[in-house]
């Protein structure tokens, strides 16, 4: 529970301080004698201890415990800084209804340091075209921990706690002593604010060192940073004033380490692009990449994955090593543009995800203490607040009649005031709320990525032969609606002998660390993949050429820690994840069985064809039958044999109309057809090796909420695609 954890240090300290003091007071007279026996000055007294007892600022706490926020080591610190800033930018843009245009620039400030150096100074700058920040809020947003707009509401967003970006600034200050530089332009046509601020960890407040107005927004100096940025800038595609009418730029100098591969900035941005097709991201990496093999490897979430890590990057294609932002096999060349020293993840969808609504808590998710607090707040808000109105106003899904029933069931009339609810009644109300028959919380507060988008993302990111995705309906954990989506990619160029790779998202944010602690990873391991013809060691994730993607969308994603690396393990969540995975798994199982069957048929025909020639000649030798004629007759028979078998049998005993198109009734499946042909091929491999991999989408479920944005990714409506599939498969069958 992140909320409690975040608040704990402060509360806990005051409390324990208080009890100690009370004890000391009560015992002071009795203890006088004992104290007197002790040698003066060597033992602490209640008074001397009291002198040391004081408030701990949340900033101090996190400055000491920065690993809780994802700043365990230089490499991860760099990633976390980028991640927090990008998350904030995306959230801000979406909330303001602006298509995100985000630039991530990492500058190496010590390019001449030896290659062996473990870390170096970097300047990370993230520029967005969001709504900007009004002047007076800048210090609070960037200079205080636990300050933000997102904590107190139930709305699906990337950020939650108001820790991230300020923590990044704090980390930068601690490691380089340099303040954060913020340029923000809340209003077009007016100058931007240039603010430099350093956080005072003692007071959890920012100290502004520079505060001027400037016309330099978006910052002009980046345009000439690398040849790539020059090219882009000259075309108006990089930090142009046209696209940045408003916006914010944050620069943080920090001790970091830039490296590619797993858990890197590159991977993060690539995965972010997969889950956020509406954003355009430009990445300018530092000129120098740190050497990879060293102690940092231990931080790359190697726990419980063993050899995987290395193999995965291998599996994701060789180009990963050369071009940073194409880690998982890379976007197809048409999708990612690479310039010298700049990478562009172009926008795939021209519409923002549907706007999500903020909701009231659902009665089932409320705890007794919180209910009491809400009652108290309501009482203060309006003396005449009735319980009847309170229930309807402060909770979601409580209808007037339900509110009336609830009042009645705790022995109060519907006109009773909130102030009439005493503690016993409140407890009773709490119990009644738990048992009440109420509709689940509204789900329009959730914006799923969508089946088609996930498939498109996987198709771009992973070179496989089979893709399936499924999007579950919203469910509730602790009164908070959430929604699980899963997608899998199988086969193709993925490594066959490794454990599968799990890519995880929470509210469209990729989760790169702490995989084994994550509910989603457990869900993958708990799902019985053997049912779908995959190998799976006991209690582990399946082994095979498989990539699994899980996305959790929720108004409040329960992370295991403030660094937001793993989803906490709630039964409801894990169950939904498993169901989503099973949906994908079933599709995969059907496909694999079908493929195995086609292969068997292919082999069968192959065997028959091989022997027919021998038989024809032997018979000619015995009785003079013309071998050629006999061969042709037998060959025709062999073909009809195997073709018949192709059609008649199905795993469920159904008649398959045309081979390979068994997904007619299924949703969310893509089969890259040349791989399928591969498996069922009868003729020698050379015959069809030249055929280009042609992804084809089949009848994909369209979610109402994500419907409109579907078109852009595929460029075509699903119907003609389907015909393509059939055509391809028919051609194959006739061979």
């Amino acid at each position: 529970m992140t909320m409690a954890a975040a608040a704990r240090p402060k509360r806990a300290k005051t409390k324990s301080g208080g009890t100690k003091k009370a004890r000391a007071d009560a015992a002071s007279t009795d203890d006088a004698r004992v104290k007197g026996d002790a040698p003066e000055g060597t033992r602490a007294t209640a008074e001397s201890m009291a002198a040391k007892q004081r408030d701990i600022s949340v900033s101090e706490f996190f400055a000491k415990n920065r690993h809780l926020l994802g700043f365990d080591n230089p490499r991860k610190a760099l990633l976390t800084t980028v991640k927090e800033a990008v998350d904030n930018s995306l959230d801000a843009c979406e909330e303001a209804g602006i298509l995100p245009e985000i630039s991530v620039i990492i500058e190496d400030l010590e390019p001449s340091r030896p290659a062996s150096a473990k870390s170096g100074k970097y300047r990370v700058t993230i520029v967005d075209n969001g709504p900007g920040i009004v002047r007076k809020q800048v210090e609070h947003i960037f200079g205080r921990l636990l300050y933000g707009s997102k904590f107190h509401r139930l709305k699906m967003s990337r950020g939650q706690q108001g820790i991230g970006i300020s923590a990044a600034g704090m980390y930068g200050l601690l490691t380089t002593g340099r303040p954060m530089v913020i340029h923000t332009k809340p209003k077009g046509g007016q100058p931007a604010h240039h603010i430099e601020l350093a956080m005072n960890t003692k007071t959890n407040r920012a100290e502004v060192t520079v505060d001027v107005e400037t016309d330099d927004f978006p910052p002009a100096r980046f345009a000439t940073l690398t040849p790539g940025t020059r090219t882009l800038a000259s075309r108006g595609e990089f930090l142009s004033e046209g696209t940045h009418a408003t916006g914010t730029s944050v620069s943080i100098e920090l001790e970091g380490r830039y490296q590619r591969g797993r858990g890197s900035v590159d991977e993060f941005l690539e995965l972010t692009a997969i889950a956020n097709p509406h954003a355009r991201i430009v990445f300018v990496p530092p000129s120098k990449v740190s050497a990879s093999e060293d102690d940092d490897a231990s931080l790359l979430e190697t726990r419980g994955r063993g050899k995987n890590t290395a193999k995965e990057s291998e599996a994701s294609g060789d180009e990963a090593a050369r071009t940073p932002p194409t880690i998982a096999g890379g976007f197809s060349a048409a999708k990612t543009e690479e310039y010298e020293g700049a990478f562009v993840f172009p926008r795939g969808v021209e519409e923002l995800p549907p706007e999500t609504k903020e909701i009231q808590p659902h009665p089932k998710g409320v705890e007794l203490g919180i209910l009491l607090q809400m009652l108290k707040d309501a009482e203060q808000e309006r003396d005449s607040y009735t319980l009847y109105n309170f229930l309807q106003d402060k909770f979601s899904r409580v209808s007037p009649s339900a509110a009336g029933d609830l009042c009645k069931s705790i022995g109060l009339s519907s006109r009773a005031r909130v102030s009439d609810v005493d503690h016993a009644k409140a407890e009773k109300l709490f119990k009644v709320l738990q048992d009440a028959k109420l509709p689940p919380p509204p789900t329009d507060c959730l914006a799923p990525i969508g089946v088609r988008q996930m498939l498109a993302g996987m198709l771009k990111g992973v070179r496989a032969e089979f893709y399936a995705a499924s999007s579950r309906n919203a469910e509730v954990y602790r009164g908070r609606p959430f929604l699980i989506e899963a997608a899998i990619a199988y086969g193709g160029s993925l490594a066959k002998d490794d454990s599968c790779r799990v890519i995880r998202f929470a509210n469209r944010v990729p989760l790169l660390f702490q995989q084994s602690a994550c509910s989603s990873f457990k869900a993958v391991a708990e799902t019985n993949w053997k049912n779908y013809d995959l190998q799976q060691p006991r209690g582990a994730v399946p082994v095979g050429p498989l990539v699994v993607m899980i996305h959790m969308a929720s108004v409040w994603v329960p992370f295991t820690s403030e660094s937001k690396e793993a989803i906490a393990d709630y039964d409801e969540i894990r169950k939904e994840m498993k169901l989503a995975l099973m949906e994908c798994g079933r599709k995969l199982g059907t496909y694999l069985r079908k493929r195995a069957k086609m292969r068997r048929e292919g082999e069968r025909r192959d065997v028959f064809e091989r022997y027919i020639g021998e038989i024809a000649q032997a018979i000619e030798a015995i009785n003079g039958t013309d071998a050629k004629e006999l061969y042709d007759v037998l060959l025709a028979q062999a073909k009809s044999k195997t073709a018949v078998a192709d059609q008649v049998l199905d795993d469920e005993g159904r008649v398959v109309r045309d081979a390979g198109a068994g997904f007619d009734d299924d949703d969310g499946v893509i089969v890259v057809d040349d791989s399928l042909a591969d498996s069922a091929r009868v003729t020698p491999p050379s015959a069809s090796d030249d055929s280009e991999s042609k992804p084809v989408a089949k009848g994909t479920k369209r979610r109402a909420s994500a419907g409109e944005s579907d078109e852009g990714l595929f460029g075509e409506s699903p119907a003609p695609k389907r015909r393509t599939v059939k055509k391809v498969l028919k051609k194959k069958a006739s061979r």
Partner: protein
Amino acid sequence: MAKKTSKASGRAGGTTSGRASTKARDVATLDKLRTLADNVAKRAFKGVDPSLEIPTRSRSNTIWDKKRRILQMGGSTQERQLFNLNQAKQFMQTMLHASTIKDLIEADKTSSLRGVFYKAKHTVAGTKENTFDRQEESDPILEDLEVSLGSLREELHIFAESRGGLIGNLTIIDKGDEIDCRRLGSSGLQVPSIVEPDVIQFKKCEADFVLHVEKGTVWNRFNEDRFWEKNNCILTHGAGQPPRGVRRLLQRFNQELKLPIICLLDCDPWGHYIYSVIKQGSISLAFESTRLAIPEAKFLGIRAKDYDECDLPDAVKIDLTDTDIKRAKEIAAYPWFESHKGWQREIDRLLKNGFKMEVEAMIVKDISYVTETYVPERLRAKDWLE
């Protein structure tokens, strides 16, 4: 296929040379082969799945003929289909061997099992796969052809390696050459795999009985001691499980010359099994039992009681293994042993003893104990099992 045979030479039944009887037999065999091929071709052109009907050579299809006291093959058959993944290769192999046999008959040559294997072995066109990989694949296919054509192996011009030996008071004619089986020195006559009357005729026989021993080494002992001379008999061995040639010859001795067949085998389940095969026939060759089985064959020894009766030292004992015990119990349950009190007692005794004994073990008494004392005494006493 090794060679493409033209249509003209395909109808070459008339060109065979040789004696009239052989010729007639070959013509019949060629006809059968042609019918086999015709059926496959006919079905193919009709669009019906090509298949071959092959009598089943398995325990389930072996019937114990109580009246004749031999094992016989039952009537059940198996279909071998071309369009069945598990049978396609065997189908092809069967056709290849059929064509190989046709070549052999037409050339009036015989070939060994191994020779036939090599003749039909080649890579399948366009692949790296061999038509046959090992002789073990080829031999059963030939047996399939024997049973499905209803032809004997020799009618297919195939022979097995000569195995087993013979010596004794007898003169035979082998392919026209007269052989005096008394004058064969220490090596004796190697029994050919084909001993049909058209190959081997009995010219003159003075022997009173046939003593069949298990192995060549024992046979050597008896020969060295001139046992056959002293006891006026024929001495044979089968080098373990006797091959078809030896079994057929023993049966001809029994049926044509009316000689009793007396077996001297080891006192263990394997020895009992060899006796059972000589007497009743075997499962895999049940279709030839009428030619091979000798229901009157007698089991002289070694008997389980001999350890006590002959006062043998402990050195002769070899402990029974678990497999031996299992085997002994199986043999005891054979229908022809099951109702035989003598055999039930014999096997019981063997199991009770807990050890087996080899014929060679008798040497511990004296080098020639078995030839000069044991066998003559038992023969005199007619102390044998039937």
